């Protein structure tokens, strides 16, 4: 496989439902440029949906950045969702299936962790939330 030209980083402001759709599309496009398969693109788009919906639902506004990351034998897409919202008081609970402080299925964070390869979350009450996830191309 010849090394593809890696797409440039994108940073999007997330503040309303429309931004979720836009972020999803941007992420899916970048995933296809990096060389992810169609099912993988759908997984990435879904992860972006979950992360940005959390921003809109719980923090109001935030940002999403997507960029290609390269390692000797593989390429990945790294997505960082950050907000300055109220933060998550109990991270462990938030990562359990079915836990939700809103009226949702409570699958957003644990689901995102399942569909991405690397998952990191940082938060404290009043300090906002930063979620960093990466999906690597299978090779």
């Amino acid at each position: 496989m010849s090394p593809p030209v890696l797409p440039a980083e994108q940073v999007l402001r997330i503040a309303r439902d429309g931004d979720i759709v836009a972020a999803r599309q941007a992420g899916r496009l970048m995933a296809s440029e990096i060389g992810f398969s169609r099912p993988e693109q759908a997984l990435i788009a879904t992860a972006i949906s979950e992360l940005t919906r959390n921003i809109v639902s719980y923090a109001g506004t935030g940002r999403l950045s997507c960029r290609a990351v390269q390692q000797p034998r593989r390429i990945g897409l790294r997505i960082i969702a950050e907000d300055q919202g109220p933060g998550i008081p109990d991270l462990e609970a938030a990562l359990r299936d079915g836990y939700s402080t809103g009226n949702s299925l409570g699958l957003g964070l644990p689901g995102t962790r399942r569909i991405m390869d690397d998952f990191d979350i940082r938060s404290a009450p009043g300090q906002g939330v930063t979620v960093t996830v990466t999906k690597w191309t299978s090779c």
Partner: protein
Amino acid sequence: MSDIIASSAPRADRLRPATDEQLRWFDITETDRSRAEALAATADELAEPIIEDFYRHLLSFEGARRHFRDDDQIARVKQGQLRYFRELVAAALDDEYVANRRRIGLIHERAGVTPTLYVGAYAYYLHSLGHMVMDRMQDDPARAVSLLLSLNKIAHFDMALALETYVDTREAAIEQREREMSELPTPVLQLRDGLLLIPVVGTLDSFRARNLTVRVLERIRDLRARAVVLDITGVAAVDSAVASHLIQTMTAARLMGATAVLTGLSAEVAQALVKIGVTSEALHTAGDLQHGIEIAERLMEG
């Protein structure tokens, strides 16, 4: 900053710092204000010739000329501009000033004055004034420069206010359109006696999902439906929140005595939903609409 963003005020306000903070950001101090005021007399005196000169410049552009109906209107706009520039050197830069500037920005935006026209006109004015002030203060050029630099700060603050209005107006228009889109009614079609079809198109946000549930239940009751086919081929994005809305709608339909069948889920989306953890127990699903209708009909008979 975080407290500003987290507050529940409308977005336009929550991202905009208070006037004091804005002034600090532009580094506008009392010294700057008094220096700008020192220019007031000169600016007053020079305003008319500058504005006359500016309109000669402006009206030489076909595009700009179209903004004016007649000479009367030009005269009125010139008066407004005189006032605008007088306020720039003399006004207290308080909340009232900010509100007034934003109002003027809004008028410009509505009238179709582009940011290029607006900033260009500003630059023209500052440039003309700068030359004239330098001419007059030849004996003390250092002071002239410091006065003009202070005025420059205030002018940039002023321009920022107007440009923010442009952005806010556009954002409000986009939000309005999104709201209209999300309020698009979802049709509930009766395919045949007892069988309903609901093609869901677009983005399924909470507001719209609630409406959808209510509509479906009303129609089930009114038409005594026994089966409902929910087709989501046209839904832009399916994630756990959308899945949750759909599951709630389908569960509610069943409580009303109608079986619900979900169709139009693409292979990729289905896989993603399973990985996320959405379970389809208790959900009737079908790959395409045709198959979905067949399943619904079987369920009605059975």
